[in-house]
């Protein structure tokens, strides 16, 4: 190519470059316009969403000037009608805005609530309601409010899942199954301030029962006026507890303010408890805590290390729940044979599961259906009646399994179906079990992961060999765990049936003598172990961190948890 020859190649190139340059400039101009337009649009949208109210104007986690704390909720309470509430979150919120006849104090002891005193007899109980108890509209809380709420809870038309918790009251079960009208319930208001309860059968722990949120009062006039929407919004609930809901934006924001009508308002130090965030995402909670937007958060095994590196003050507790692997004892299931279950027990070490796989402090290796915190005659139940334990013995398990296979005349145990939920923790644990049984006993475990309702449907119909199950306490008595494996309990999903266990459950239900009852629980514990009815895995714990300025938060296994009613802010 010579110097003076027309360079078409370059010309085309430079023409293209020119074109690109001016096109690029044009593009830049458009981009600028777009950014400006976008900014305007966002301002407009935020103004619009303010109008619609779906906002969570958040204050910092601890706002000492306004005496306010901000917190996160794992989900929005489905509704706050105390006769219908079932979940932990509703229970927690109800614990702040409602008060029953009795309540738990900061040391987790039962103390007088709306009732100033009470008398529990073999066949019934009387509660005397204090004069100063008021609803948030200024009306006095009366015995009739309790009668209305309790009748509502067992009314079949109301369809409360927790109706069973009132069954110790006379005729409750018959009413709930539609055999008697709800007016026949064994509870009546002898006068404005006296509540008279008749029992169906003697009950040893009725005082503990009435602290549960289903036993909260509801004012009839207000309920009817809410026109079927009682508990759906902040305005459609009447409060008698330490706080009342001042703002409830669905899905976005819940704000509790100190209730001036609360009879013991002097006890309450915080002005506002704010819940501007609803999410199940644990990392989001941790990030909000790091940012100082919330005053408290739970931690999990994954983000614990991060918390340690930040040198936070960590705390922990057992949340009261027990987790176990349940066997299917139905006729057509291979897991109904004790030898197989025993072999499976002998290779499983709950300590390994807790210390190496779960790795969270606060968790305890499972030994029994009864958790360690339950009270016995004088001290702890588990101290008075130690749970039988087993040592891992793989050769013995293998021998037992070989024996079992010979008896059954089979070479190989067919694959066992392990039913489990779709949460990360149970997925991880079922994989642990799958490998454990493959490596030690050459058992094939098929993990049947199901989402919530499908899992429940399969549990009910018995389509499983093994199921990862858990149980949380409803009231502070060993019976909340003790009757789980009675043959008539519908939550006994594996249909375990042992007349001996049934007999001891009846003793524990009907006796009023602490020693007799605890003996019965001891027997149940031994029988379930002897039969390998279940494999206890762990007692669940929670590790959490609170803002160092927040004091007086109470955590507990039974009752509203966490409890901020006694909380206060201390500025350093």
């Amino acid at each position, binding site marked *: 190519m010579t110097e003076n020859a027309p360079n078409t190649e370059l010309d085309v190139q430079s023409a293209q470059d020119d074109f690109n340059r001016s096109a690029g400039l044009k593009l830049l101009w458009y981009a600028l316009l777009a950014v400006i337009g976008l900014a305007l649009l966002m301002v407009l949208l935020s103004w619009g969403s303010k109008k619609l109210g779906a906002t969570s104007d958040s204050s910092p986690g601890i706002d000492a000037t306004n005496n306010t704390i901000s917190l996160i909720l794992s989900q929005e309470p489905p509704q706050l009608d105390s006769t219908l509430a*079932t979940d932990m979150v509703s229970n927690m919120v109800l614990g702040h805005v409602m008060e029953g006849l009795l309540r738990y104090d900061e040391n987790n002891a039962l103390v007088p609530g709306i009732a100033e005193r009470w008398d529990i007899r073999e066949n019934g109980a009387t509660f005397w309601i204090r004069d100063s108890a008021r609803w948030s509209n200024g009306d006095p809380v009366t015995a009739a409010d309790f009668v209305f709420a309790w009748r509502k809870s067992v009314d079949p038309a109301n369809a409360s899942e927790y109706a069973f918790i009132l069954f110790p009251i006379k005729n409750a079960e018959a009413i709930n199954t539609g055999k008697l009208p709800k007016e026949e319930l064994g509870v009546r208001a002898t006068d404005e301030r006296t509540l008279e309860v008749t029992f169906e059968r003697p009950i040893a722990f009725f005082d503990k029962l009435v602290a549960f949120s289903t036993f909260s009062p509801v004012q009839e006039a207000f309920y009817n006026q809410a026109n079927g929407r009682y508990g759906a919004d902040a305005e459609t609930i009447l409060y008698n507890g330490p706080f009342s809901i001042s703002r409830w934006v669905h899905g976005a924001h819940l704000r509790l303010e100190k209730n001036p009508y609360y009879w013991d308002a002097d006890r309450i130090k915080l002005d506002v408890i704010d819940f501007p965030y609803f999410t199940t995402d644990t990392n989001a909670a941790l990030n909000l805590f790091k*940012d100082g937007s919330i005053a408290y958060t739970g931690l999990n095994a994954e983000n614990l290390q991060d918390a340690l590196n930040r040198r936070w003050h960590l705390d922990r507790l057992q949340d009261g729940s027990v987790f176990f692997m349940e066997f299917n004892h139905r006729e057509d299931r291979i897991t109904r044979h004790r030898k197989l279950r025993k072999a499976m027990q002998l290779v499983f070490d709950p300590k390994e599961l807790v210390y190496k796989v779960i790795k969270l402090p606060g968790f305890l290796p499972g030994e029994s259906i009864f958790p360690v915190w339950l009270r016995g005659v004088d001290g702890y139940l588990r101290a008075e009646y130690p749970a039988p334990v087993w040592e891992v013995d793989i050769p013995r398990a293998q021998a037992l399994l070989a024996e079992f296979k010979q008896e059954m005349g089979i070479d190989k145990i067919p694959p066992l179906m392990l039913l489990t939920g779709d949460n990360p923790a149970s997925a991880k644990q079922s994989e642990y079990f799958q490998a454990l049984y493959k490596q030690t006993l050459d058992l094939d475990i098929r993990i049947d992961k199901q989402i919530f309702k499908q899992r429940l449907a399969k549990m009910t119909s018995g389509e499983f060999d093994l199921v990862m199950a858990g149980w949380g306490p409803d009231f502070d008595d060993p019976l909340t765990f003790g009757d789980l494996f009675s043959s008539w309990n519908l939550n006994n999903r594996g249909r375990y049936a042992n007349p001996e266990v049934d007999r001891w459950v009846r003793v524990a239900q009907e006796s009023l003598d602490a020693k007799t009852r605890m003996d019965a629980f001891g027997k149940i514990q031994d029988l379930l172990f002897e039969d390998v009815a279940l494999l206890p895995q762990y007692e669940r714990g929670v590790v959490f961190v609170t803002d160092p300025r927040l004091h007086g938060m109470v955590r507990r296994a039974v009752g509203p948890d966490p409890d901020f009613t006694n909380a206060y802010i201390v500025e350093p």
Partner: protein
Amino acid sequence: MLSYTLKRLLQGVITVWFIATATFFAMHQVPGDPLTTDKAVPEDIRKNLEEKYGLDKPLFEQYTIFLSNITRGDFGISFTQKNRRVNDIIREQFPVSATLGILAIIFAALGGILWGALTALYRNKLPDIVIMFLVILGISVPSFVMAALGQMGLVSLNDTLGFSVLPVAGWGTVQHMLVPSLVLGLGTMAYLTRLMRSSMLEIVNADYVRTAKAKGLPASRIFTKHQLRNAVLPVITVLGPAIAAITTGGFVVESIFAIPGLGRFFVQAVQQLDYTVIMGTTVFYGAFLVFMVILVDLLYGFIDPRVRIS
């Protein structure tokens, strides 16, 4: 034009009716039902419940009841949020999802068109390679990772600055919206970038572009009127479904940023088999999607005179 729109709307109603019917019967085939609860309930009480909610009636009767209710615009009462009407849930939660979705789609569309045009102009040169790399990153990292990273970024940003510039989670102001909508739009932005690049390259040498150049039209005019306008067509085609997908698919971002959108309610409803909420949201989203598609088709005819709607 008007008769076309009316015809399309009528077709839309029929489509939504099909969606509702298919979902209704599919939902009832799934094992379990809204009355299955964590704590087992005795048979008698279950029967009472079924009666109360009309679940004891034959399936077809339930279907006709459902149809007559939705024609009156009543989706019923939620099973999980026992005292809340599905209409209220949609009315309160959808605007949030829509705001998030619209912002995300605008981010995605503007970004996609911009980056796409840029990469096409500088094909196989540095901007193209850099953007290609970012695009690959954008689509191979799923939105929940992006959201988690975005949130961590916010924490460290506020931490370094010492005061809260952008909130870590929550909803309500521009500051709340910025990061979640960006994160939600990233995947679509990456897709649109590539789509735009590809369609730009196809028309770079189209006859009409050459003609325009030969006529000596100014470059910026050729670029805007001939190239951009034609290349943007496939982008617009996918926008309609993309808006619907982003608005319904935002639940991961909604969950991480604690945003009170409808996406979370919808996913929870399927998991909880909350029949009324499933039906309400499906019908609503179906109608929304159909509407968006009609809108985009009308827009399409507006931009591209060749595809005149008949």
